[in-house]
C-alpha cells in the first residue's frame, strides 16, 4: 500500500518535473537572439529533467550542497562533484511532506529530490557532503542521513573573521581530504591537487571573462542565460562545460564587438542578489528580463559566488595547497550564514559601481531568515548610494507569478522613468 503510494508519487513527480522544465525552457527560448552556444546548456537541463535524472557516468560521484564544498579536492580524488541543490517545485512538494512549511524551498526540494531518487542514486552517490552552513541545511543533513545516503557533514565555522575560525575550517578541509580518500578509495596526491586547482582556475577564468563582458554597455548577454551557464556547472561535466562556456565566450565577445544589446538599448541594469535561482526555479530572473530589465550582475551562490574566486598557494605541497583551497572557500565567502558578513555589503556596493547598476533586486526564499535579515542593512546601504532596491520574497510555487510580475514591472518601469528624467 505504502509502496504503491510511493510509486505513484514518483511517477507524478517525474511528470511534473518534465513539465516544469519544459515550461521554463520554453519561456527562456522566447527571448530573442539567444546565442547558439547556449544550446548546450538548454539541452543539459532538458535531458536532466525529461527522463530519469542521470548522474555523471564512469566516475564516482560526490553529492555536494552549498558552495563551500571544495571541488578541487573531489576532482583530485578522481571523483566528480555533483551539486544537489535543487530548484524544482515538484521536488519541493515531495520534501514538504516531511519538512515544515516554513522551511526553505531549496532545502525542501533537495530533500525531496534525494527521496524520490533514492533507489536510483543510493549506490551511485558515494557521499553527500553538507557543509554546516545555515540551520536548515544542517538539519536537512539529518533527514538525508535517514535515507540511504552516506552524509558527510563538513564542519564550517559560523564566522570567518578570526584566525581561529580560519584554522578550524582548514582542519575541517584537511580532515575531509583524508576522508575523501577513504570514500573514493583513491589517494589524493599533490600532483592531482595541483592539476585540479589549475583546471578549476581555468573554469574560473572563463567565468570571470563572461562576468567582465557584462560590464559593457549595453550588456551583450541576458542574466538568465548566465544563470543557466553557472547552473550547468553543478552537474559535474567540467570538460563539457568548459568547451561550451568557451564557445559562448567567443560568441559573446563577437557580439560585444558589434555592440550587440541583449535587451533593449536602455534597459535598466539590474543586480540580482540573495537566494539562489536554480533551474527550473528561475522565474524571478525571467520576470525581470521579460519586464525589460537586464540582469548585468548577480551576487548569488548559484552563480558569482560559485565561480568568481580562485585559489592561490605558495608551495606545491599538500600541506599548503589544501589549506589554500580551504581559504578560497571561506575567506571571500559572502554567504549570510557567516556573521559578520560585511563583505557581502562591500561586494554588492562594489558591483553596483562596476556594472553601472540602475537597481538591485533582492531575492529571498520565504523561509530563508538569513537573507531576510540581511535585507535591511543592504537596503540602507544602497539607499545611501541612491540605488533603488526591490525586495522580493518568494518560493518555488508558480502561484505568485502574477503578483510578482506586477511588482517587478513596476520597479523596472520606475527605473526607466528615473533614467529618462536624469537624461533630461
Amino acid at each position, binding site marked *: 500500500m505504502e509502496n504503491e503510494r510511493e510509486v505513484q508519487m514518483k511517477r507524478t513527480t517525474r511528470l511534473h518535473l518534465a513539465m516544469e522544465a519544459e515550461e521554463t525552457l520554453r519561456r527562456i527560448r522566447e527571448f530573442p537572439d539567444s546565442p547558439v552556444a547556449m544550446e548546450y546548456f538548454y539541452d543539459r537541463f532538458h535531458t536532466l529533467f525529461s527522463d530519469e535524472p542521470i548522474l555523471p557516468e564512469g566516475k564516482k560521484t560526490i553529492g555536494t550542497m552549498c558552495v563551500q564544498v571544495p571541488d578541487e579536492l573531489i576532482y583530485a580524488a578522481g571523483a566528480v562533484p555533483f551539486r544537489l541543490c535543487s530548484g524544482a517545485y515538484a521536488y519541493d512538494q515531495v520534501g514538504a511532506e516531511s519538512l515544515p512549511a516554513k522551511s526553505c524551498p531549496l532545502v525542501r526540494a533537495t530533500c525531496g529530490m534525494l527521496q524520490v531518487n533514492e533507489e536510483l542514486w543510493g549506490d551511485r552517490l558515494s557521499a553527500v557532503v553538507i557543509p554546516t552552513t545555515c540551520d536548515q541545511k544542517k538539519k536537512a543533513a539529518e533527514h538525508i542521513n535517514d535515507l540511504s545516503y552516506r552524509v558527510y557533514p563538513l564542519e564550517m565555522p559560523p564566522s570567518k573573521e578570526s584566525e581561529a575560525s580560519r584554522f578550524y575550517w582548514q582542519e575541517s578541509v584537511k580532515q575531509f581530504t583524508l576522508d575523501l580518500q577513504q570514500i573514493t578509495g583513491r589517494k589524493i596526491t599533490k600532483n592531482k591537487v595541483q*592539476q585540479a586547482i589549475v583546471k578549476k582556475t581555468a573554469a574560473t577564468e572563463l567565468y570571470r571573462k563572461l562576468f567582465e563582458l557584462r560590464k559593457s554597455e549595453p550588456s551583450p548577454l541576458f542574466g538568465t542565460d548566465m544563470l543557466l551557464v553557472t547552473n550547468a556547472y553543478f552537474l559535474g561535466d567540467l570538460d563539457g562545460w568548459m568547451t561550451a562556456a568557451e564557445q559562448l565566450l567567443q560568441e559573446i565577445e563577437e557580439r560585444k564587438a558589434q555592440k550587440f544589446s541583449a535587451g533593449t538599448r536602455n534597459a535598466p541594469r539590474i543586480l540580482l542578489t540573495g537566494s539562489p535561482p536554480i533551474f527550473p526555479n528561475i522565474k524571478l530572473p525571467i520576470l525581470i528580463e521579460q519586464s525589460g530589465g537586464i540582469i548585468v550582475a548577480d551576487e548569488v551562490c548559484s552563480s558569482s559566488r560559485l565561480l568568481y574566486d580562485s585559489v592561490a598557494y*605558495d608551495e606545491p605541497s599538500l*600541506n599548503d595547497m589544501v589549506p589554500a583551497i580551504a581559504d578560497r572557500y571561506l575567506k571571500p565567502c559572502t554567504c549570510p550564514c557567516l556573521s559578520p558578513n560585511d563583505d557581502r555589503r562591500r561586494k554588492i556596493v562594489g558591483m553596483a559601481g562596476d556594472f553601472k547598476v540602475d537597481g538591485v533586486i533582492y531575492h529571498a526564499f520565504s523561509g530563508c531568515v538569513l537573507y531576510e535579515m540581511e535585507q535591511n542593512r543592504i537596503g540602507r546601504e544602497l539607499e545611501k548610494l541612491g540605488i533603488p532596491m526591490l525586495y522580493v520574497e518568494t518560493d518555488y510555487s508558480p502561484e505568485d507569478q502574477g503578483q510578482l510580475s506586477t511588482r517587478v514591472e513596476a520597479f523596472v518601469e520606475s527605473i526607466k522613468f528615473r533614467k529618462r528624467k536624469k537624461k533630461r
Partner: protein
Amino acid sequence: MNRLKKTVNNSRVSRFRFWFQIAAFALLVYGGFLAINIGDRLPTFACVFEDGRGGSCYLMGFQHQMTIPFNRIFTGRGIGVLVGLLTFIGFFILFNKAWCGFVCPLGTIQDWLTKLRCRFSVRYSSYPESLFNRLSSIKYILLALLILIPMGIGNSITGLPKLGHDWGVPFCMICPGRTVLPLFIGDFSQLAIDFSSRTKMVFTALGMGITGLFFTGAFVKKRFICLFCPMSGFHYIFSKAGMLRLTKNGDTCTRCGNCYRVCDVGIRAIADDVESKNIVKDDCIMCFKCVEACPEEGCLKASFLGIPVYESTEEGFFKRMKGLDNGK
C-alpha cells in the same frame, strides 16, 4: 607603453626576484673582489665582517657612532652621526622595504633554505596570530638595545659605570649575518667562540646559538629571522617616505586572502585591512608576492614615485596560475 605595462603585470615577479636576489647577493658578498663599493650606509645586511662585500651594512657604523659621548653630540661627531643617518635614509627611501625582499643577503639565504625545504617536501610552520604580534615587538627591543648599549660604552648612563669595549657592536655579535655571510668567501673565523673575556664569550656563544636557530628556523619557517630583525624596525620608521610603495585599493578587495596565503612573513592586514591605502607593515619585506597572487584588477599596486610598476590584474593572475601546470 600599455603593452609593456601589460607584459610586466602578466609576469611573475617572484622569478625576477629570484634572479635579482642572486645578483644582489653576488654584488654584496663578492662585489668587493671586483672593487665594487656601493656605499657603507646600506639599509641591508651587507656584512662588514665579510671581506669581499660590495657595500656595508649601516647598523655596524650606527652602533659605532652611538658610542658618542653626550657632551659631543653638538660637535662634528654629532654631525657625522646625522650625515650617516641621512645617507642611510637616502638609500632606504629609494627602495623602501624592498631592500629586505630583493637585496638583503641574509633574506636571500632564507629564501634558498625555503626552496630546499620545498624540495624535501617538509611543510612550513606559521605562527598563531597572537604569538606573531608578540614576537613582532622583539625587533624594536633589539633596536633600542643596539642604541642603548653603545651609548653605555661612551657614557655613564644614570651613574652606572661605562660598559667595556667588549660590548661594542652588540647587535653584530648576535646577528647571523656575521657568522653566515663570511662562510661564502671561505672565512670561518666568525664561527669561533671568543674566550678572551666573559662579555665576548657570552656574545659569541649567543651569536652561534642564533646562527643555529637561524638555520633551523629559516628551514621550517619562511623568513624566520626577519620577524626579529631590528633593521626592519629601523626601516619602518622611515617607510612612509619611501619612493617605492605598495598600496591597496580596499574597494576592489574581496578579502579572498590569497595575498595573506602567499605572504612569507604572514601579514594578515594585507588581506583583511580594506581601509588603509599604504599597506606596508613593519614586517613587510616588499617581495610583491601578494601582488602576484591577487586576482583583482588594480587592487594591489607597487609604484615608484607614483608611477605604477607592478599591479595586480586578473589577466596576469590567471596567466601565472595556468603556468603552474607546466611544472614551473
